[in-house]
């Protein structure tokens, strides 16, 4: 999985609680992404980062925040989890911003009850 580790792999949390998902890479790639995968929607971009402390919103960013204080770590925080955020979350890296493909982590299955 291209040196990408997501943690935790599975989590159940209660509505209204904050949750942080971690993506760690070992390759020092500049570009990192958080996606969510839902049936009927494919993958949708939540947030992305193009360097340390450089982040921007994707298409479904409401209710999520991110931080990147080190090249290797990209954190996704659900500020106050809701049932609509029950999903599988994938982190991805891209070696450069040109024509290269992305490499994905194994995913985190999050259930909000």
């Amino acid at each position, binding site marked *: 999985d291209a040196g*990408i580790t997501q943690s935790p792999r599975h989590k159940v949390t209660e509505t209204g609680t904050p949750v942080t998902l971690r993506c760690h890479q070992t390759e020092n790639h500049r570009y990192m992404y958080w996606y969510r995968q839902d049936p009927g929607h494919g993958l949708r971009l939540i947030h992305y980062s193009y360097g340390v402390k450089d982040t921007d919103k994707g298409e479904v960013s409401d209710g999520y925040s991110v931080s990147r204080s080190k090249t290797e770590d990209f954190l996704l925080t659900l500020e106050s989890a809701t049932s609509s955020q029950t999903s599988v979350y994938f982190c991805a890296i891209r070696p450069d911003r040109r024509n290269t493909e992305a490499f*994905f982590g*194994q995913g985190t299955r999050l259930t909000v009850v």
Partner: protein
Amino acid sequence: AQSVAQPEDQVNVAEGNPLTVKCTYSVSGNPYLFWYVQYPNRGLQFLLKYITGDNLVKGSYGFEAEFNKSQTSFHLKKPSALVSDSALYFCAVRDIGIPGGYQKVTFGIGTKLQVIP
């Protein structure tokens, strides 16, 4: 706005038969096109991409895809399906005409391929 359509939720094919998974796209400029595969409980894995040049692109595990600009399609193909090819397949597109910043990749909703022994 760019978009990707995968018109079939599921494709069933007998082992040994050729398979096709369909993808059509819409972008304002020229596209970069990708196919990814997802096995159960795993992340997406890159299969192949079209950037420019030959319309027939060869990728991993014997897969290939044909870029057809007039039909705005990028169908995934394999001459002889294996049971181990059973997985979820995603087509993705990026518009190379949008300058600077993040160049958005749009994914299709996925097609489940079932290869029957």
